[in-house]
């Protein structure tokens, strides 16, 4: 039915320090087909693509193009071999024109100077190929184009490079309904012209709409491969189907859940719409959803980093307006950011300094650094011991610690202030399995101690295993509430908008 594959990846394995990212993954894509690559966040899709495009080299296995083994040492090699990747973040230069972007680094010369007429003619030819000539002019600045058009330019660039394979990494993430249709039409056209397309997504609707074949990756392994597109439920089960591991602590007994600590009514801002929410003492609430669904925006709104512009928020029954993180911390809210390096750690300072930072920020500025009204240095050492932070010395600079130990030190930072509400964003991202378990137990201990715990996570097993209640968000709204007996498929369907959530 379909001829020999253009690209074939055989038995690819790749490890990063502490993580086995891929284990014996095989994947192929032929001319004129759209092969959907599905999997949850962190399943290994991106790593696989980076190996295909020469960003990483595999530890084992081989990449074949037109049946010949390739050893890319640089993304440029892959590009020349005909592989173009369109990443979620575009690589276009915003202050250059469409034509200049298309010919970046390979501008046609005429008498030693750049032949801009030839560039524009060729750009028009390529844009005409997929019928978007009327939408995009070669002389337009990329910055003046909307996101969908920028993506078209990326694809046009791939075509003008004579790409045999185009990889699209969640191409619809930033597109609206109508723009998606334009993209699908373009994909159809490319397929008809014989291009091989690897289409990464976790939206079932798109798989059904455009894919010929489907491969599902989970935890670095291929869990299912279909030569025809099966029912969405089948793919979703392959994406999420795993036993919930033993390492989650017991959930809260009904008696342990107390009165509401934090409530939001009609909360809205630029990224959130009409949020009604209640977090209770003793309860861990998991927030599920796709990237950009508004989970982090909600956390940032509660924490005062990107405040609500409408609606009301109450804390312990009193209406509060938290306009800065400082306001929120003073009111008893703590937050552990998902991107620890960028948003939580002061890497050149010691483990102790990292732990003490928040307490010091609310103590008298000219007070002694090693003792304040929240905690002293011995107390901090005690917390760090209790967290089992592994460091040769607590005077060690933070940057030398592993991700798990860094996270535990940041937990100690918040414990020093005994917050009423503690928000964890992606609490176990980049953390080894053992430390994961201790973070879950710690969250449970905090809840037992009377705190309300909010956990934002893209890891569905984690959401189901560690939460007492689950809130699913999509497009800045809360679209479903589930109890912990929900299945991953149910959450996934609610998060992708395939079915409305059932009120719990």
């Amino acid at each position, binding site marked *: 039915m379909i001829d020999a594959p253009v690209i074939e990846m055989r038995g690819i394995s790749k490890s990063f320090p502490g993580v086995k990212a891929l284990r014996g993954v095989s994947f192929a894509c032929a001319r004129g087909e759209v092969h959907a690559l599905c999997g949850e966040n962190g399943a290994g899709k991106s790593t696989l693509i980076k190996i295909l495009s020469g960003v990483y080299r595999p530890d084992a296995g081989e990449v074949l193009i037109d049946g010949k083994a390739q050893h890319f040492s640089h993304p440029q090699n892959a590009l020349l071999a005909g592989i173009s990747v369109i990443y979620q973040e575009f690589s276009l230069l915003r202050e250059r024109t469409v034509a200049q972007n298309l010919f970046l680094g390979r501008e046609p010369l005429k008498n030693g100077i750049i032949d801009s007429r030839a560039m524009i003619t060729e750009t028009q030819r390529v844009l005409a190929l997929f019928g978007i000539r009327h939408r995009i002019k070669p002389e337009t600045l990329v910055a003046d184009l909307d996101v969908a058009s920028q993506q078209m330019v990326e694809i046009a660039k791939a075509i003008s490079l004579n790409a045999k394979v185009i990889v699209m990494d969640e191409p619809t993430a930033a597109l609206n309904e109508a723009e998606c249709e334009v993209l699908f039409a373009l994909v159809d056209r490319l397929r008809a012209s014989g291009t091989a397309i690897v289409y990464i997504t976790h939206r079932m609707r798109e798989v059904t709409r455009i894919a010929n074949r489907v491969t599902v990756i989970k935890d670095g392994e291929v869990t299912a491969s279909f030569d025809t597109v099966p029912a969405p439920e089948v793919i979703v089960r392959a994406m999420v189907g795993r036993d919930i591991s033993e390492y989650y602590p017991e959930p809260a007994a009904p008696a342990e859940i107390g009165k509401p600590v934090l409530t939001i009514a009609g909360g809205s801002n630029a990224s959130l719409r009409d949020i009604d929410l209640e977090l209770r003492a003793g309860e861990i609430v998991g927030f599920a959803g796709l990237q950009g669904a508004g989970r982090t925006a909600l956390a940032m709104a509660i924490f005062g980093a990107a405040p609500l512009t409408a609606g009301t928020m109450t804390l312990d029954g009193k209406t509060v307006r938290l306009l800065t993180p400082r306001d929120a911390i003073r009111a008893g809210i703590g937050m552990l950011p998902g991107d620890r390096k960028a948003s939580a750690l002061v*890497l050149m300072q010691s483990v102790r300094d990292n732990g003490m*930072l928040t307490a010091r920020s609310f103590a008298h500025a000219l*007070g002694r650094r090693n003792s304040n009204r929240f905690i002293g240095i011995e107390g901090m050492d005690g917390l760090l011991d209790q967290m089992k932070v592994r460091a040769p010395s607590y005077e060690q600079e933070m940057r030398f610690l592993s991700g798990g130990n860094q996270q535990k030190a940041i937990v100690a930072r918040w414990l020093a202030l005994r917050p009423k509400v503690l928000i964890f964003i992606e609490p176990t991202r980049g953390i080894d399995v053992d430390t994961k378990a201790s973070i879950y137990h710690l969250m449970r201990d905090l809840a037992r101690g009377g705190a309300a715990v909010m956990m934002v996570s893209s890891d569905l097993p984690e959401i189901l295993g560690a939460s007492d209640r689950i809130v699913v968000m999509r497009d800045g709204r809360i679209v479903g509430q589930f109890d912990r007996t929900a299945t991953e498929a149910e959450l996934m369907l609610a998060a992708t908008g395939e079915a409305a959530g059932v009120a719990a």
Partner: protein
Amino acid sequence: MTEQTAARPEVSRRRLPGVNPVYVLVVALLLAIFIMNPAFGEPTGYMNFLKRVAALAILSGGALYVIVSGGFDLSVGSTMTLTLTVIGSSMLASNDPNSTYWIIPLMLGIGLVVGLINGLVVSYLKVPSLIATLGMMITLNGVAFMWSGGAPRGYLPDTFRFFGRFNISDVPLIGILPVAVICLVVFGTILWWGMHRTNYGRMLHAIGDNPQAARLAGVPVQRVRISAFVVSALTAVLAGVILGGRGGVSVDIGSGYELQAITAAVIGGAQLLGGRGSVPATIAGALALEAIFTLLNLIGLAQPVRLVVQGLILIGAVALATYQRKRAGR
């Protein structure tokens, strides 16, 4: 950095004690001066050296506050010029010795305003500190020139010159003790305490290390940053008072000091992009810089060579620090 935990002696003992290389450098340079000029070993020799270095050392300690917070303050030299030339001498045309008691507080008040403006512009208008303080430097130099008419009009009374010039004589053991050296010890200690013993000092390190993380941890980033510029400007005034006592007053008396202060901090191992720096090491850096200048002088090399050497040190020290940091995996 200097503290090791008592709970883990087995680890700390294995590691070599981390002596900042700047201290070794200072000792080596002072020995070299002593070998070339044995009179340096006399109290008058080294005390005069310390007296000469006091202004720069205090200034560098203050500049370090801004550097650790992740910024630069290029306006300290012009702050010295403005307060010293205009307020200090021109307004003291009457040569009234008693006016020192209100003139110095007035100078400090102007320093406070300059520091506040620097800090507010950097914090709220988001102008990069290098540019904001460069603008302030040019402005203040212009103001100083306009106000003084190109040359200082009056003379500093002896009460004012006391801090930079006076020596306490007949001190047991060391013979003479310049007031400037006492000032260095007092202000150096205050700067050390603020930077290394208070919550404020730790917050300063945090905002220089990662302002976003500091903000999300609850550090009042703007207030801390503004205060760093205020400290820097106030030390500039204090350094100016000592400098004015030592030598003549002119409309470019402070020029060049801003970069000497940054150089001293860098020699002392401060991280130029913020997050790391030590007051004692910076003071040692100022000593090292002055010692290098003294040596060049002894060898018979003139002012232009000083500038070349200073420039090379600044580039070399930053290149070395960047290299070491890269090797340490960051």
